[in-house]
């Protein structure tokens, strides 16, 4: 298992280098000439050249790439024009909020999706299965922002069960940053009222965000369970007198969870980069909102920063899924 993990980790380093090469290339393609841009519209050729030397743009490309990597490693990710702050600080302020939202959302999707998938498979083509199918089709077809708006209308404005939006109340002092995840920090510092408040705020956006993931988890898990339940080892388990619950919830589910894990990982990665609609509706200070605002104002450095962070977390997710695969399936583990 250790060898398996190490091998995956080494692979991930290479993928990360690939990602950085891509962002580096993009930053060299556009805008056309950073030195000319930096020097301003009235600059003459001499001044542009001076900027070129100053920014190291006259050096060979591979050298610039190394400098670029060095800059990233030392936390110098450039400056945002529209927030006038360092990109690294901005990312640290916004990205954890998105992570929190997406984690919470995917946990809801797993907690509901996996059991519903199992139930749909066990009661295949019975009324329960059809009802679950309606839910999955709805989940895929319904636009997230519309769902979010409806949830706000009903649960926040009409029933007043949940706040309309935001991360916590304006007047609440956020906990000191330790992990930068607000709910975790609140718990670590024993501020339970802040934690409950944050939890209260996260429910509606997380539910709105989870629907597409929920739908695909149910569908994949149902299909895998159907296939697994037809396997010979399930017949054998029945012939040996095991209880139906144990056969379904342990013997079949562990096999069916392998492909389901893959879809969970994929969905998690997509959700990280696809929160902007929900963040807009619920006024959630996350990276989606930040990146879109940067893109609208042609603010280059934050876009690159957000791309790297999202790409990195996407890889991390896949890495984790690979590890879980290894834990679940001994054949994968020993294949290395």
């Amino acid at each position, binding site marked *: 298992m250790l060898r398996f993990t190490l091998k995956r980790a080494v692979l991930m380093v290479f993928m990360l280098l690939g990602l950085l090469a891509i962002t580096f290339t993009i930053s060299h393609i556009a805008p056309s000439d950073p030195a000319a841009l930096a020097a301003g519209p009235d600059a003459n050729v001499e001044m542009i050249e001076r900027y070129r030397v100053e920014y190291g743009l006259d050096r060979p490309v591979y050298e610039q790439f190394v400098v670029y990597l060095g800059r990233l490693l030392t936390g110098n990710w450039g400056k945002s024009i529209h927030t006038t702050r360092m990109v690294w600080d901005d990312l640290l302020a916004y990205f954890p909020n998105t992570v929190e939202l997406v984690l919470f959302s995917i946990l809801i999707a797993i907690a509901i999706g996996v059991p519903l998938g199992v139930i749909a498979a066990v009661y295949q083509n019975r009324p329960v299965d059809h009802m679950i199918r309606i839910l999955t089709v709805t989940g895929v077809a319904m636009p997230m922002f519309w769902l979010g708006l409806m949830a706000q209308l009903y649960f926040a404005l009409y029933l007043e069960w949940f706040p309309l939006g935001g991360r916590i109340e304006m007047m609440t002092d956020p906990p000191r940053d330790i992990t930068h995840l607000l709910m975790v920090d609140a718990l670590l510092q024993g501020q339970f009222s802040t934690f409950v408040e944050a939890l209260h705020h996260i429910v509606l956006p997380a539910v709105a965000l989870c629907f597409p993931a929920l739908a695909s988890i149910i569908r994949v898990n149902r299909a895998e369970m159907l296939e697994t339940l037809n396997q010979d080892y399930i017949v*054998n388990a029945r012939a*040996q*007198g*095991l209880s139906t619950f144990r056969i379904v919830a342990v013997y079949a589910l562990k096999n069916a969870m392998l492909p389901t894990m893959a879809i969970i990982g994929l969905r998690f990665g997509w959700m990280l980069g696809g929160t902007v609609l929900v963040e807009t509706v619920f006024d959630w200070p996350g990276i989606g909102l930040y990146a879109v605002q940067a893109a609208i104002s042609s603010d280059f450095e934050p876009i690159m920063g957000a791309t790297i962070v999202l790409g990195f977390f996407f890889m991390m997710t896949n890495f984790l899924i690979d590890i879980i695969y290894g834990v679940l399936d001994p054949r994968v583990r020993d294949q290395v």
Partner: protein
Amino acid sequence: MNGPPMNSVDPLLSVRDFRLEFDTFDGVYQAIDGVSFDVAPGESIGIVGETGCGKSVTARSIMGLLPSPPARVRGGQILFDGEDMLTVGEERLRQIRGNDIAMIFQDPMTYLNPVFTIGTQLVDVILAQQRAKPRAERMTRRDARDHAVEMLRKVNLPNPERQLENYPYQLSGGMRQRVLIAMALSGRPKLLIADEPTTALDVTIQAQILDLIDELRADFGLSVVMITHDLGVVASVCDRVVVMYAGQIVEDASVARLFDHPAHPYTRGLLASVPHPGRPATSLSGIPGSLPNLLDPPSGCRFHGRCALAGDDCLQPPPNTVLAERHKVACWRAMEGAGAVD
């Protein structure tokens, strides 16, 4: 064949006029049509026939393992120790499985769960058996593990303790079949149903597994129902044979009697198609034609379309004839056939 019981002992298993069909998109498939046979305590019987003749379906029906729908029981009884397996209900069936009746299957490669260790699966099965017992007699997890090791030793698996930690893919086919046998016998059942247990194995391993089953049979006082299409297997481990054709039993005889005096034309066809070291390969003959379509089975004797002796009377259901004390046959031409071989 609702004849008088063959021996004076009460049978352990008694299948009586069992009928079962499957709903398919093309219609009703009449898989089992009036099958009756008994298994005495300690007796080993073989059920032989071509693929699709209903032998596996019969075996799984005894355990209540066929999903319904599409399977539908149309009549008859399957009495095990006096209880009708068709009516006892799923809860009771689950207690009977593993504790009283156990089953092993054709392909050991696919009948073990790939993502759990041998130990986990064996211990789980042993613990599941405990629920049928009063609380005071139940094994703890530790007892179950010791029992698992003991069972693996009984089936001659090397290093039983170490095998518990292994996953199925780390074992060979023969070893897996041994694990499955250990699993099946861990509850000390009275009846073992073996559904083609050696078909997927190498010839040398086949012999080892058959020897093992024979040995354990004596050891545990087991009755065995051996499902196979291999008459060699029948000859080596069975006392009696039931020959099935197209969902019906055509002949029921002791092994010696069947090999020496096969009465049904189909049985004789089967015997003639077995290669034999003493005979030239040219004398090997198959049975022409193939199994009839059971969506619309032929009237009368279901074999008449392929039978060289068939005549007009074969369009009527054949009588069950008792030829000897332990020899029954369902055929209009049974006497002629038996005479011809004698």
